[in-house]
């Protein structure tokens, strides 16, 4: 809900409340005045009727016109004088109308009479109508003026706010941007803009540091590793080494190689996480990527007698080509590494989805856990345990989802975009 909409709602509620209260007060006070007037009228009539009854015995015609009707009935006993209000049927219009009646008792020549003077309260209905109409009119006027004012406010007053919001929306950390804004007259917006500028400034600096650190770490670790590996290779050429020494050297070499690979994979992962790869600009056709990879891996596939079935059509997500390569590579090598001898790999590529399904040994843990770094099922010592973590990260930064499902011997990895 928009802030202005919210404010408008509160304004609406408050004004409706105030207006309702005002209407009630208005009604009550006017009603009170009218009531008093009617009562006074009735009391005056009472005085006249009493006097006539006591002194004349016969009521003159004009007396009958006091109030709107006059009834006189003989009764046994006198009651208390009282004023009542009741609805009575108007025969001519066939509807109920409110009447005020003053009932009092008068003794004339030893006989007790009950006298009822009634007065139609038609003013009250008129009043009600007037109040409702006035209030409705005021409410309508108020709402229209509020709406007009709010839309103007949102267009003019809130403009800088929306500008800032838009700038933040399209903010890209990879571009090392610092957002700056023109000076504002409204203090709150000025503060907001200042905070955003400071924030993006810090962000860009931190990001730059991180990027430099990653690059430097790469350089610093790769170089000593290169020294170690080159020295080992030099040593291998030394013909005076004994067989046992050569074997030990070979093991050192294997470990150092592994360390180098691990370092490279971790660096790639960090780089992707830091979004150092710019997003792609156009959809990539994954078909040549998949075919190239399958050709690279063909002797591995043949050696394990794996059957590869492909059902691919030229399509693919929008992403950096290098990342698409890494993603396809990791999915396919994963499907080969954890396959069984004489197994099967099904590759399906359709608009919006890439599915790699392979046979393998059933696993007991939640397959989604295999996306964690260094998580390995079984003892594949050659695996770094980073392949699926890398694939997952690539999908995350590109807004795709990667899911892992198992069904008995079948392992299915699906990329949706």
């Amino acid at each position: 809900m928009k802030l202005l909409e919210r404010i408008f709602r509160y304004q609406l509620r408050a004004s409706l409340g105030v207006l309702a209260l005002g209407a009630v007060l208005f009604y009550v006070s006017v009603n009170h005045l009218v009531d008093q007037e009617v009562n006074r009228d009735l009391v005056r009539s009472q005085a006249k009727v009493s006097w006539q009854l006591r002194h004349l015995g016969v009521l003159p015609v004009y007396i009958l016109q006091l109030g709107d009707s006059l009834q006189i009935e003989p009764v046994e006993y006198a009651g208390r004088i009282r004023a009542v209000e009741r609805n009575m049927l108007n025969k001519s219009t066939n509807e109920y109308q409110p009447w005020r009646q003053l009932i009092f008792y008068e003794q004339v020549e030893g006989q007790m009479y009950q006298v009822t003077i009634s007065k139609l309260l038609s003013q009250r209905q008129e009043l009600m109508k007037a109040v409702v109409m006035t209030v409705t009119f005021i409410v309508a006027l108020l709402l229209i003026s509020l709406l007009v004012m709010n839309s103007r406010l949102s267009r003019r007053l809130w403009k800088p706010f929306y500008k800032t919001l838009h700038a933040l929306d399209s903010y890209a950390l990879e571009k090392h941007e610092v957002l700056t804004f023109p000076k504002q007259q409204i203090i709150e917006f000025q503060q907001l803009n200042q905070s955003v500028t400071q924030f993006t400034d810090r962000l860009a600096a931190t990001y730059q540091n991180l990027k430099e650190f990653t690059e430097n770490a790469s350089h610093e670790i790769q170089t000593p590793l290169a020294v170690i590996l080159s020295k080992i290779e030099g040593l291998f050429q030394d013909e005076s080494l004994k067989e046992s020494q050569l074997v030990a050297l070979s093991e050192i070499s294997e470990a150092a190689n592994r360390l180098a690979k691990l370092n490279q994979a971790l660096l790639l992962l960090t780089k992707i996480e830091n979004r150092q790869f710019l997003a792609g600009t156009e959809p990539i056709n994954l078909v040549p990527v998949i075919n190239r990879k399958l050709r690279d891996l063909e002797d591995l596939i043949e050696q394990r007698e794996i059957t590869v079935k492909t059902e691919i059509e030229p399509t693919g997500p929008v992403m950096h080509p290098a990342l698409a390569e890494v993603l396809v590579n990791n999915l396919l090598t994963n499907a080969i590494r954890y396959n069984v001898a004489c197994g099967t790999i099904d590759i399906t590529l359709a608009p919006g989805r890439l599915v790699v399904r392979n046979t393998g040994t059933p696993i007991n843990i939640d397959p989604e856990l295999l996306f964690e770094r260094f998580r390995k099922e079984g003892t594949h010592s050659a695996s770094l345990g980073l392949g699926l973590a890398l694939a997952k990260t690539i999908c995350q930064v590109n807004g795709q989802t990667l899911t892992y499902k198992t069904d008995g011997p079948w392992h299915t990895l699906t990329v949706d975009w």
Partner: protein
Amino acid sequence: MKLLLIEDEKALATSIQTYFQRENFICEWAADYRTAVEKINIYRYDCVLVDLMLPDGDGLNAVRELKRSYPETGIIIISAKNSLDDRVTGLNLGSDDYLTKPFHLSELNARVQAVIRRRNFQGSQQIRFGKIQIDPQEHLVQVEQQEIVLTRKEYDLLVYLIANKNRVLTKESIAEHLWGDDADLMDNFDFIYTHIKNLRKKLMDKGCPDYLKSIYGVGYKFSEQ
């Protein structure tokens, strides 16, 4: 053959120098950008190996300089940076190859030889070893004028072995040469063994002596003795 190595890490530079000296190459070394530019301007080299991160400058500038003054010199970038941008920039500037640290010296050696061979337009580009003769452009392998049909991997393996003749080659370096980053897919190195066995058989069937020696626990050696 004359090489220039531009690399600020002394220990690595000595290893590389020693390796190429055994190959009877002259390998000069420049530890910083200034020395490198001086040497480039005075001497002629067949191939220059450039590290991108130098203490006093960007190796890419050295590549630009070389390309302008001596376009016929082969250039191989050796860098700890494998960020794609650098790779693309390096290759666009006209470097012939890009090798990410750490690398196997045998791999560097094979690449240097390939670059020199490709740039040696006048001379023969043929690779010869004992009774084997290879035409790299045609991917044609002959033993005493008889053609041998090799698979792509077997061919790559043979060229690699010849480039690193008389040296001990580790199984990892062979695996990495043949499968690149997929080398770690191999749970053991039986896989290389299959290719080695097939290659050896094909060569010996055509009357080649057994050039391939297996060295227990380490790898292989390709030599005439």
